[in-house]
């Protein structure tokens, strides 16, 4: 196809770019949508867990006999009953058990699970389990945990620093020596809770050879791998299904309840389903919270404003287990080095064990915290240099074609346009505000932030841990001498078996299986999950656009591992871009078959055909057409048909980080700029967000309704992160595990959100699209902090920026008196 023709094609998009109501909308507005929480099955049992009341203790003994003999109790399990209990969780380090057997490391650490005929009996049984604890010294802050005399959270580690890495590009010291101005400061962020409306829910059953799991997961295929490893059941006998999911936001990227419930069902056997649903309190206390961290940033610049050096250091409170924290610290290094053009970079991160609730990934994956620190410092730098903060950003931001010091290859980058559009939007108001603030108790200010994010991510998991749970053959052998993956060589050394030699999981894949039935309707299987963001509608739109099959004739089935369409999961703003590409590839194959058959029927060569609105027709003479339903019938009902069943696999052209941690981890990147207007009440310290403008380089927008929804929802969560949300812990115990005391901003606090999309077609994206899941949450906290500075001249360095902190800061600096 010529370039002109391709533009012509794109201009005539029939479905993509239109405001399409979500395909599961009717079920959702009529209450018929079934969530895992809603599943009730015959002979169902209900599960409950016993949690540690101590932040740190040795388990001296567990006595389950009374619980077991309670009438109505079918099964009680402890860690010892789960075959691979210790090697299931863990992305980079296997330090977490499904049920803790010998030691508990946080309040809420789960020790035993019960399945009983109803919830009340299960609860009663849990209360009858006797555990003898020997409390240990506990540590609740990363700073304290890093000191030499701190008690170790894990014995295998020599210190509480679970991991530390640094990434260096060029010479940061030389960069600072060239600088005319250097700024440096430390920022703190608080743990927050994902708080999806549906709490974690799992239903599982085992018939003696097949394990079935329904759940609220974001990563069904990944769960299948883990379940297979945990119970020694091969993957083809494990089926993970995701019904409607009531939100995720990263909290369901591997969560223990899924495995606990599956282990219970496996022990119960007899196809008896076990159901477990977290209470809201458990959602806060037993499953992960967003990490709290401490970030120090040092920037150096020439007096004209060009950055000469950037140095950053993150100390991440991982909680009781490393989980995703190490990957997150690495990811922050990538983000740190990829928004401003600066060759001299140093980033280091420390993930630190404490006896706090384990941290987990959440929307933005470290970018929100990093941006709070970095974008606040960019503003501070601008003040020092007496340069407008937007101008400073504009002269330093990355541009198309730039390869960042950490290796990101920015093939499609329109950050400059994002910054310009946000600046333009607030231009007049900034001038106006300079005059109106003087004599008011309510001071208004405007702040900005900008940045980059990935669209999918190639992090390089350890493929051997992925498969066996172990990184070293001798460790696996010690645990399981009969494992087929290891053997003892002639030299007596334990080795991986020949052929099992991929150390790194070098892929970021999704796939699609597309079947067109003989009535011309399509079933599209993908591996990723629609957890509310509208992914299935997006996928249907892509398939409809390409094949001409009407939207209502397309059924997208995601997240059922029995479909066989492997996808690594829904996270990292990857689904539209990567699963969308897989769907587009499959649609192209299916279209080829349809066109081949239609070409006979219409007596025209395939390159003169076009498909839209349920028909295939001649481009030059659209009246000459056939229904896709009739073409599809030929595929099945005639000798030469051959059916229409196609599959595809898509792995983006991204690069694994090398031994120095550098590489272009995604094929496409997302860019954004955000601006915020706030009003600070200097009497009370209350900050009100009056308006937000959020501009995003996202490629072609597939469905504006859902893309806007992602921005609006992200901005809402960003405001929560910035101003109201904080999981409050006292000696490791969460004080506010409920919506009364953990404050998600209510509707009345939501400002107007002006959304702008820079819709430059991404050549590697499906029909030009990239992604939008995370970035709109990222810049809100720093933009608000910068707006507060603009309004009242105080630099907020701790999230959330609640009234008491703002007031204290106002009083500290006395700056409001100066105003």
């Amino acid at each position, binding site marked *: 196809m010529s370039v002109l023709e391709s533009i012509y094609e794109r201009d005539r998009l029939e479905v993509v770019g239109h405001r399409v109501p979500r395909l599961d909308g009717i079920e959702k507005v009529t209450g018929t949508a079934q969530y895992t929480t809603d599943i009730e099955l015959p002979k169902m049992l209900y599960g409950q867990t016993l949690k540690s009341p101590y932040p740190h203790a040795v388990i001296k003994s567990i006595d389950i006999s009374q619980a077991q003999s309670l009438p109505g109790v079918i099964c009680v399990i402890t860690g010892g009953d789960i075959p691979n209990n210790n090697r299931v969780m863990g992305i980079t380090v296997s330090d977490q058990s499904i049920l803790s057997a010998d030691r508990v490391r946080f309040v809420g650490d789960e020790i035993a699970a019960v399945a009983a005929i109803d919830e009340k009996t299960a609860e009663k049984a849990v209360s009858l389990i006797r555990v003898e604890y020997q409390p240990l010294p506990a540590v609740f802050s990363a700073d304290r945990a890093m000191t030499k005399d701190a008690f170790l959270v894990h014995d295998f580690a020599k210190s509480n620093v679970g991991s530390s890495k640094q990434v260096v590009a060029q010479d940061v010291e030389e960069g600072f020596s060239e600088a005319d101005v250097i700024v440096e400061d430390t920022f703190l962020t608080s743990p927050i809770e994902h708080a999806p409306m549906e709490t974690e829910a799992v239903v599982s059953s085992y018939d003696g050879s097949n394990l079935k799991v329904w759940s609220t997961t974001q990563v069904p295929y990944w769960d299948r791998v883990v379940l297979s490893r945990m119970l020694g059941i091969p993957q083809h006998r494990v089926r993970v299904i995701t019904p409607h999911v009531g*939100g995720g936001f990263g909290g369901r990227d591997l969560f223990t309840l899924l495995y606990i419930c599956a282990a219970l069902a496996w022990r119960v056997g007899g196809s008896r389903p076990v159901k477990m649903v977290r209470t809201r309190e458990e959602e806060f206390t037993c499953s992960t919270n967003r990490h709290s961290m401490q970030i120090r940033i040092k920037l150096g610049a020439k007096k004209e404003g060009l950055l000469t050096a950037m140095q950053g250091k993150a100390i991440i409170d991982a909680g009781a287990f490393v989980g995703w924290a190490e990957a997150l610290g690495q990811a922050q290094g990538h983000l740190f080095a990829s928004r401003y053009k600066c060759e001299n970079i140093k980033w280091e991160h420390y993930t630190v064990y404490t006896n706090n609730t384990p941290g987990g990934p959440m929307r933005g994956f470290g970018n929100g915290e990093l941006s709070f620190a970095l974008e606040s410092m960019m503003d501070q730098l601008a003040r020092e240099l007496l340069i407008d903060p937007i101008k400073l950003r504009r002269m330093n931001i990355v541009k198309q074609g730039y390869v960042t010091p950490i290796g990101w290859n920015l093939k499609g980058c329109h950050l400059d346009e994002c910054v310009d559009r946000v600046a333009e939007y607030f231009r007049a108001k900034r001038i106006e505000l300079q005059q109106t603030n003087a004599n008011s108790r309510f001071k208004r200010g405007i702040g900005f932030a900008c940045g980059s994010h990935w669209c999918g991510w190639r992090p390089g998991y350890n493929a051997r841990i992925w498969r066996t749970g172990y990184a070293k053959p001798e460790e696996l052998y010690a645990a399981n001498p009969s494992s087929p993956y290891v053997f003892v060589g002639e030299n007596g050394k334990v080795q991986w078996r020949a052929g099992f030699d991929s150390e790194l999981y070098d892929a970021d894949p999704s796939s699609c299986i597309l079947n067109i039935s003989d009535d011309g309707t399509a079933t599209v299987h993908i591996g990723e999950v629609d957890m509310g963001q509208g992914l299935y509608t997006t996928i249907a739109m892509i398939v409809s656009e390409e094949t001409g099959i009407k939207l209502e004739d397309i059924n997208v089935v995601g997240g059922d591992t029995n479909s066989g369409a492997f996808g690594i999961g829904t996270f990292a703003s990857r689904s539209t871009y990567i699963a969308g590409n897989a769907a587009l590839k499959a649609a192209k194959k299916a279209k080829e078959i349809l066109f081949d058959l239609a070409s006979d029927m219409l007596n025209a060569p395939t390159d003169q055909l076009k498909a839209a609105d349920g028909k295939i027709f001649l481009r030059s003479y659209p009246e000459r057409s056939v229904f896709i339903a009739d073409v599809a019938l030929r595929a099945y009902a005639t000798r030469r048909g051959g059916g229409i069943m196609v599959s595809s696999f898509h792995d983006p052209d991204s690069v694994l980080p090398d031994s120095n941690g550098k590489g272009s981890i995604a094929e496409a990147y997302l860019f954004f700029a955000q601006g915020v207007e706030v009003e600070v009440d200097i009497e009370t310290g209350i900050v009100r967000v009056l308006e937000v403008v959020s501009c995003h380089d996202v490629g072609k927008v597939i469905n504006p309704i859902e893309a806007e929804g992602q921005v609006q*929802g992200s901005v809402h969560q960003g405001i929560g992160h910035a101003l109201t949300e904080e999981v409050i812990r006292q000696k490791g115990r969460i004080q506010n595990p409920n919506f009364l005391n953990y404050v998600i901003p209510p509707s009345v606090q939501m400002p107007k959100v002006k959304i702008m999309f820079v819709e430059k077609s991404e050549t590697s994206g499906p029909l030009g699209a990239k992604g939008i899941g995370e970035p709109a949450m990222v810049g809100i906290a720093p933009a608000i902090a910068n707006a507060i500075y603009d309004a009242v001249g105080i630099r907020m360095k701790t999230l959330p920026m609640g009234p008491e902190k703002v007031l204290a800061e106002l009083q500290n600096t006395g700056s409001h008196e100066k105003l």
Partner: protein
Amino acid sequence: MTSNINLKINGARYAFSVRDDETLLELLRTRVGLTGVKKACDAIGECGACTVLVGGRAIYSCLYPALRADGAEIVTIEGLAVDGGLNPIQESFLKLGAIQCGFCTPGMILSTQALLEENPEASVQDIHDALSGNLCRCTGYEKIIEAIMMAKQTYAKPVSRRG
């Protein structure tokens, strides 16, 4: 202690023997099978997902004793559709994309229904007030407010559309 109650749910009559401590939420979800009534907090009136209409008034069914509903007419999300079609609020939520994960949606729609039945001229502030007990974690509320403003136009007409 149990007591016998009679009630009308989504137009159908039911008789139940209920425990004193049984909530309307429990009755509707587990005994009537109306799983459109959701629960997102620990049944302590913090999230609004369990909102239903009792005599046209929006209430938290998690805090409402089933016993108290004796003789009442109850509408859940399953009973809101009119004559096989969507109620105007359902339609505007769908059309404008005021739904993401959908878990808060039934409660949002029912709170709106109670509001617009009572005050078809509801202002944006009235809407915020009416939704102050309904949490949403996905949408940022903006499309929900827009959808309600759109649905409002239908309610402003003199014809009552009570489901």
